[in-house]
């Protein structure tokens, strides 16, 4: 046989799962991200007493596709003084990092995206933080003041909050004792409880830090619209801009998946080991069926016939999914499908809830100022995360060496960390008060024209 062909065949034989996964990620994630944007716009509209996108497709459901087409055919502008190579590369780096980090994530016991590597979580975090290079390089290459300021803010922010997030994850990893994605979830099944209940402070720190890492409000300083126009993306247009955008939303999915895996029990249903709660297994099917029923109910009230048909279509899809979720429960020979299908359902539900939280905060809160962001990171979150890691470690020693009740030990650590948090906040207030009373904003003679000439 031709040795080249042979090599290719061997390569395909060993790597076909990864190749297929790669294609699936690249094909599916942008679409999902587009629809997350639509969901976000719809939710925002709902909270702001308006309708949101309504024109493209029924209830604006085709809006993401229209947006993508628009961005693709838009003129691609590269500023004259930009470093063209870096300018071209930067969004690709951002996007690639976000997509690559998805490779190790598992969406259910049966849906490992690429491979369950032994450093799974570390890989996800490490690779997804590489996305920052895209932002910094893009901001630098644009050769614009707004861009460079956005890039600088982004760098400082990521360095600060990645530390806090990493320390928060260590608290969870101490409990799990492994970095393997599947083993982390198995550990939670073995414990019989999601880690969020054992280490709530760590989860809280991770939520805050992950919002900052993904540059979402109230920590969206790198692209603060009202201050820096669009921050590091100011000079980008067309599909390069879209790549940054997709990268951001893909990152949201990644941090949501990490939080779900480590703290929210991954693909486990609530109370995974409690036998009398087994009726919860029926919930996914009932839930999707209920959504379908609601669509049927709404279908009659649509003003336009296309929308009625569309609602019927959505209802049908919901019923099909409900059937797929229900059949393995009822038909004994198909029982082996239950963990896979239901696991994926719970996992996606938890990620959605996590992303919903992000959106909700974005619509509600004003934006932090840069110095306040840094204070929050370095004076409160990082010390708190360090204390939390130590406390969780002590609790585990108490449990394993001295036979304490696990809940008692964890309660103790939580109380200790919360006390630390209060202390830090008090300290911070005092420092802020001292700073504001001691040093009024620097006064300079303002009579002369600062731009004379």
């Amino acid at each position, binding site marked *: 046989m031709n040795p080249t062909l042979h090599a290719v065949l061997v390569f395909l034989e060993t790597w076909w799962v990864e190749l297929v996964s790669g294609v699936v990620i690249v094909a599916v994630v942008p679409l999902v991200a587009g629809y997350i944007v639509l969901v976000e716009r719809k939710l925002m509209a709902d909270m702001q007493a308006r309708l949101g996108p309504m024109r493209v497709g029924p209830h604006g459901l085709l809006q993401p596709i229209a947006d993508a087409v628009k961005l693709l055919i838009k003129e691609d502008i590269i500023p004259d003084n930009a470093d063209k190579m870096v300018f071209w590369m930067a969004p690709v780096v951002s996007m690639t990092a976000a997509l690559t980090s998805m490779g190790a994530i598992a969406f259910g016991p049966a849906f490992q995206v690429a491979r369950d590597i032994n450093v799974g979580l570390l890989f996800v975090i490490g690779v997804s933080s590489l996305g920052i290079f895209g932002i910094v390089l893009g901001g630098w290459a644009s050769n614009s003041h707004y861009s460079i300021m956005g890039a600088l803010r982004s760098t400082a922010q990521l360095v600060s909050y990645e530390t806090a997030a990493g320390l928060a994850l260590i608290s969870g990893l101490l409990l799990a004792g492994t970095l393997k994605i599947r083993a982390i979830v198995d550990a939670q099944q073995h414990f019989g409880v999601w880690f969020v209940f054992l280490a709530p402070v760590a989860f809280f720190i991770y939520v805050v830090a992950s919002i900052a890492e993904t540059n979402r409000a109230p920590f969206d300083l790198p692209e603060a619209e009202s201050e820096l126009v669009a921050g590091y993306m100011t000079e980008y247009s067309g599909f390069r801009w879209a790549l940054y955008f997709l990268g951001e939303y893909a990152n949201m999915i990644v941090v949501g998946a990490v939080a779900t895996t480590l703290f929210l029990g991954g693909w486990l249903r609530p109370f995974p080991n409690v036998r009398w709660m087994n009726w919860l297994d029926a919930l996914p099917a009932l839930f999707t069926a209920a959504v379908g029923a609601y669509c049927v109910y709404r279908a009659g009230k649509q003003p336009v016939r296309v929308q009625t048909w569309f609602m019927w279509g959505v209802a049908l899809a919901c019923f099909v999914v409900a059937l797929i979720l229900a059949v393995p429960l009822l038909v004994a020979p198909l029982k082996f499908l239950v963990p896979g299908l239901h696991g994926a359902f719970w996992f996606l539900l938890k990620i959605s809830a996590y992303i919903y939280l992000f959106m909700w905060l974005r619509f509600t809160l004003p934006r932090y100022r*840069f110095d306040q962001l840094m204070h929050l990171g370095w004076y409160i979150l990082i010390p708190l995360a360090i204390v939390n890691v130590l406390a969780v470690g002590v609790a585990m020693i108490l449990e394993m060496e001295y036979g304490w009740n696990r809940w008692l030990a964890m309660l103790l650590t939580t109380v200790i960390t919360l006390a630390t948090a209060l202390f830090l906040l008090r300290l911070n207030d005092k420092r802020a008060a001292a700073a504001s009373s001691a040093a009024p904003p620097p*006064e300079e003679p303002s009579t002369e024209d*600062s731009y004379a000439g």
Partner: protein
Amino acid sequence: MQDDAAQNQTLLGADELVLNMGPQHPSTHGVLRVKLKLDGERVRGTECVIGYLHRGVEKIAENRSYQQFAPYVDRMDYVAAVSNGLGYCEAVEKLLNVEAPPRAKVIRTIMTELQRIASHLVWLGTHALDIGALTPLFYCLREREEILKIFEKYCGARLTTHAFRIGGLQYEAYDSFEKDVERFCKDFERRIQEYVDLLTGNSIWIGRTRNVGVLSAEDCIALGASGPVLRASGVKWDLRKAQPYAAYDQYNFQIPVGTNGDTYDRYMVRMEEMRQSRLICLQAIENIPAGPILGKVGKVLKPPAGEIYHSIEAPKGILGYYIVSDGTTQPYRVRIRPPSFINLQALDKMARGHLVADVVAIIGTLDIVLGEVDR
């Protein structure tokens, strides 16, 4: 080169960064251009470049009759057109030595106070948006819409209303005018609580506004600042009380003042002003006197030669009209004292030493409208 660096005394001896903010910028409220002299993110100096919206309103006045010029003043502070119109009509009335009938005065007061609420709502929404809170803007515009509907029903226009005429009113209040105003005022009490819930106690909001852009009372007076900017610094000066015009002497209301003169105080003062305006409206619709709506003014206005200065408390501060008449049908000279223009002077004083993000908050808190700054 090294000497320069030593002179500038910036961190690491780096050059200062000049950031050009505007005239195309999401939060300069129109076409304001601010050149920021920055050390990192810290503001070392600002320079405002204005005039992008200059239309020569004062010069136009010299070539129009007194009535013809009235719609032009609506285009100055276009988010508070009714207040502009009131100031101009009263100034010309003073020049003519006529007085609007009591009914016209009360309706003018109601309309102007509604306009004050509408103007403050636009300020609140955009100010919150500048600081990063997306949602209040839409709530504010929702309430403003109700006010604009009342305007539309009254005079057919929503924004540049030209609601008043020299000597009184052209239009009688429509049938359900009182009812509409009352319904708005009743709803508004509950709505204003929504903004309070979203912002007043929010620690991020407080962090972004407390001790930002502090102006002392002395500074305010020296710079000529007026309106909520002045009152937030603790100076209780409101022309509605100090030199009552229209029908303000008939109503009970409070003048809210602040203590620190920071952005948070200005926020609190404006919020309270909206509540007070609501109370004025409620009092005014109780008893609108019957009678004519237009005083005795001729078709052709020929004021006697002379000059007059009349000022009112517009939503943004003291709005003054100085009119010189040479006895003809056209003014010889009209000079307008726009509150936004004079309040904008305080920007440099307020922004020095703060961060770029604060500049945006300070521009928002000054509540400028470029149509009025440039005229």
